[in-house]
């Protein structure tokens, strides 16, 4: 089974591809938008996880 980070990256990949094709008509625009969304999702999730790290969990 894939680990959680891999699953997160896979989900981000699918979402980024989806919105690139949904919102951008040109190939070059799509690539730019894809990397922007993909980066925001992956780095954002890692950043939020890092910020939550000090909080206790039961």
């Amino acid at each position: 089974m894939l680990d959680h980070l891999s699953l997160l990256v896979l989900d981000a990949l699918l979402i980024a591809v989806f919105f690139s094709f949904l919102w951008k008509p040109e190939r070059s625009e799509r690539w730019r938008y894809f990397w922007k969304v993909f980066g925001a999702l992956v780095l954002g999730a890692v950043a939020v996880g890092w910020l939550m790290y000090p909080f206790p969990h039961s």
Partner: protein
Amino acid sequence: MADKAANRPARRESRLPMPVLLGLAWLVPGLGHLLLGRRLRAAVFAAVVLAGFVVGVVLDGELMTPHAGDPLSYLATFASLGNGLLYFIARSMGLGQGVVTAPAYEFGNTFLLTAGMMNLLLVLDTHDIAVGKKDW
């Protein structure tokens, strides 16, 4: 941008009544775009929604049903139903029951809900293309 749109070849527009077109777009991911002549996007959207759905089921995610007293379950059911035929086929095969104790259960749910909501967005996009709000 307007020039680019004007230079694009004319696409075949569907002659189906709008409710039928939107119904088909919901039932089969990508079919709405295919019927409107957007073949590349139809293929990409179908692949993305199908991949998300399959991964969700494989990860023991749950295709939600409403539970009395749990308002969020109604929203989750709406999003799950967004998968169209995939939802009904999987449920009829006994898939997507959800294994709460599985390590990737929540990830499975995320993939299934994401796939369903993406397909619902495709229905709206199909509508926008069909009425001419979106010309590409």
